[in-house]
């Protein structure tokens, strides 16, 4: 499974990395450092990934079965 963060939507609310500490981190602007990336979700962190997606007010985070070809 993959987590994808849409750079166009992310506005730096900083909710995702607050609930998914082991998966995501912040940059100095308060945006998620992994903004614009698609990452494979490590073993055991799917719950955190889903929490991050549920926490983002902008709907910037999706959980994907496969990495998108264009990402």
């Amino acid at each position: 499974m993959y987590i994808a963060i849409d750079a166009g939507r992310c506005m730096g609310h900083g909710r995702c990395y607050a609930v998914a500490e082991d998966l995501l981190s912040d940059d100095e602007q308060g945006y998620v450092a992994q903004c614009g990336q698609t990452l494979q979700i490590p073993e055991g962190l799917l719950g955190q990934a889903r929490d991050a997606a549920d926490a983002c007010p902008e709907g910037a985070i999706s959980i994907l079965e496969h990495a998108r070809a264009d990402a």
Partner: protein
Amino acid sequence: MTETERGCPYSHVDFGLDTEIYGHYALLDGHREESRFHFNDTTRRGFYMLQRYDDVLEGFQRHETWTTHVRSALNPEPGTALLPQDLNGEAHAKLRRVLNPFFAPAAVKRMTPMAHERCVELIEELRPKGSCDFVAEFAIRYPTDLFLALLGLPVSDGEFFLPWSETLFAGFFGGDPAAAAAAKANIIAYFTEAVRERRANLRDPREDMVSRLVEARIDGEPISEQDILTICMTLMLAGLDTTRSALGYIYTHLARHEEDRRAIVADPGLIPAAVEEFVRLYPLVIQAGREVQEDGEFHGLDLRRGDVMWLGIGSANRDPRKFPEPDRFVLGRKGVNQHLAFGAGPHRCLGMHLARLELAVVLKEWHERIPDYRIKEGTTLVERGGQLTLKTLPLEWEV
């Protein structure tokens, strides 16, 4: 037949008027369930009200054509200049990039020890008295002190700064305009002096916001003195009244709901989740305004250039389509983080992490020292219209 404007039912409710506590939420809930959109005709320009969660969020995200040329649907005139609010598009993004690092979670974390220390001092001052007007004696003083600290100014200046900012706020909500103008002049003179001092003694611009503002270049140009002063003024206007108001509603809730109070006294680890749910449940910025820049359409609603939009934060946060049993305080509510109390899109609240810190620190330090308190018997709590706040909150406790 109900009258309609472009197919939208009218609302004649003036949301700027004072009510009893929670009066505005009752009105907003009623509106939202009666019709998806309303046209409100209580202001000169009128405004279209978006009220459901999904609609309000989408409104915030339409930032390219719905701009902050109108910042408040209730008060669409330009009024006092505010930065970064008044900017849009690329110019807004550039200024936010200068400011964001001082308000990001990492920066706010650096303020944490000071935030606790100051909070404890204020509580210890009040505790022996056994009672206080929580709004005037605590809830406004604490954010004022932290605001001064954020600007690298002595917290002790709060003593004379606070009466100025209170007089200025009062002016926005019907108070004496001459007194408000005099207070504003004092505040500007105070900020001018602070900026001058910092120009002479530049500190580390990674840690000191005023030094960073003085030193920053946007497209090769420094930020003008005027704009730096506007930014300081904006942070004051945006950060003090809001935090005070949030505390007022939170303490009313906790004074009246012993089980919730006991829960956070017993386990302070619950506080961050409680803060998030409180901010959802008691939105005080009940709306953000926007001005439509291009003719267009919003889910069947015809919009024209120059229309004023009401992005109904207060309705969205209590929309049962998004938050089941929206009137209930639910610790650990699923999806609570998606609430819109701090807005969304590029203008989302700059101070949200600072506000969260302030609220969490107060809940922790207060309940460690004053775990039991009540609202003075016979009090009627009045809520200011426009941007909600409780006018007073008399609390009592055993000493």
